[in-house]
């Protein structure tokens, strides 16, 4: 027998690991990946591959050579950030913009704060919003979706159209009625399946919901954040719609179009940038829902999920500070 090992209790550990969690999310993203490749073809593939590779590359280079820390790429978090960033981009974005976006996401929003676990804002969304503000033209021209066979080889030269939310927002501004505008966009079944213009990964509510179910089953995330976000959006837009269906779109349209599904299920639930307590998660979710609707309905941008999540990210420390889990043996004041 060699020297005995001593350490403080506990002496037994669970089989959880960061790697497992991250790859769990990656698996949950597979249906969405499939839908996006189906509708956006080569463009989607190009963007996704570029984004994931450059995210992993930046993570590796900056961690190793600038921070002199052990590389963390094996835990899959950089790949996940890259994939999520790609899902938030239009499929005809020039490659160099994708690389810049990945750089901003990984280096500015993540590594500058100390790498995984220390960042305050969701890196993928920070990258996306950075691109959106910096190159609004490229970021707001959306290719028309069509089944895979049609434009397998199309990338930047595909025909572009508008997102359902874009059509709505623009139309409302020029004084048209919401009901009429909604009739111009693909019907709800099409939206649900993903046959609509938009970012690579945000179309196809069905695929995202499959991912959600998978993550809930694997206990990777809890229901609190997605449900509170989607619920708030439904209720808030429902009230507006009820008040004036001519000026506001119905809740189902809001839920199925734009990035709300992707945001609620995959972006807002990012561990690092969401609150720690269940009650905090609910507040966070409600906040995201409210802000999303406010920006969509009254703001300049047709879509507000990214901004809403980033803004609520900033509130997370305050939520954590004041919304604590209920302590055992402590009465509620």
């Amino acid at each position, binding site marked *: 027998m060699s020297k005995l090992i001593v350490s403080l209790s506990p002496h037994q550990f669970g089989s959880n690991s960061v790697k497992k969690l991250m790859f769990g999310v990656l698996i949950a993203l597979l249906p969405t990946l499939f839908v996006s490749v189906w509708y956006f073809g080569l463009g989607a593939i190009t963007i996704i591959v570029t984004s994931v590779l450059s995210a992993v590359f930046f993570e590796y280079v900056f961690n190793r050579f600038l921070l002199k820390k052990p590389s963390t790429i094996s835990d899959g978090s950089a790949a996940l950030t890259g994939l999520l960033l790609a899902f938030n981009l239009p499929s005809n974005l020039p490659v160099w913009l994708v690389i810049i976006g990945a750089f901003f996401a990984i280096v500015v929003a993540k590594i*500058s704060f*100390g790498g995984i676990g220390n960042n305050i804002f969701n890196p993928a969304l920070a990258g996306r*919003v*950075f691109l959106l503000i910096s190159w609004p033209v490229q970021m707001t021209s959306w290719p028309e979706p069509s089944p895979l066979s049609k434009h397998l080889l199309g990338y930047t030269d595909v025909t572009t159209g508008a997102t359902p939310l874009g059509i709505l927002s623009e139309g409302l501004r020029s004084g048209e009625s919401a009901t009429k505008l909604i009739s111009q966009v693909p019907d709800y079944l099409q939206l649900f399946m993903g046959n609509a213009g938009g970012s690579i990964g945000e179309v196809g509510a069905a695929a995202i919901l499959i991912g959600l179910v998978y993550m809930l089953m694997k206990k990777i995330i809890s229901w609190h954040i997605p449900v509170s976000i989607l619920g708030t959006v439904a209720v808030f837009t429902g009230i507006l719609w009820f008040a004036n269906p001519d000026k506001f779109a119905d809740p189902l349209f809001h839920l199925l179009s734009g990035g709300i599904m992707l945001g609620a299920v995959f972006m807002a639930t990012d561990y690092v940038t969401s609150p720690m307590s269940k009650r905090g998660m609910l507040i966070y979710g409600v906040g995201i829902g409210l802000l999303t609707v406010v920006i969509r309905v009254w*703001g*300049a*941008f047709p879509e507000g999920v990214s901004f809403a999540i980033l803004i609520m990210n*900033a509130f997370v*420390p305050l939520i954590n500070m004041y919304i604590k889990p209920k302590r055992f043996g402590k009465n509620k004041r």
Partner: protein
Amino acid sequence: MEYILIIISAIFVNNVVLSRFLGLCPFFGVSKQVETAAGMGGAVVFVMTVATIVTYLLQKYILISFNIEYMQTITFILVIAALVQLVEIILKKVSPSLYQALGIFLPLITTNCAVLGVAIIAVQTEGYDLIKSTVFAIASAIGFALSLVIFAGLREQLELADVPEGMKGVPIAFITAGLLALAFMGFSGIA
């Protein structure tokens, strides 16, 4: 409705700190702890409101009637400086604990460009009337306090994070502020 627009615009869309670049010194100086930040925010709300009302009256009834608007800067700042010092003296007596907490930053409210900036914007750039100016001042100050408190929360969390050596302290605070401003750009176009 107009007031609501002014309020939303001042708090979110044209947030004094994140969009207009006013009041940055206290924004970075007094944002290490949420509680102090909240105290500072409260002080600014008070000072900014009173300062805007006083300078509005000054502009309307003295400067304009004597046709000497060019003296705006000097009279405004004089009034604000006196006002802040007054608050300081009173606070020292009435609430020593708050005085301690705000420390040297109370005199710095004088040099908080947000106070002067908001006063000038209210009476000159936007040309609001008295009530609108007051609403605008309160909303702007709330916007300031809000961003200050959020930022303090972020910095308290960053204290516990493993920020790389070179980025520690001020640099990361700036980057956080930048990302916060990026997020707040989502509000653009609301008002």
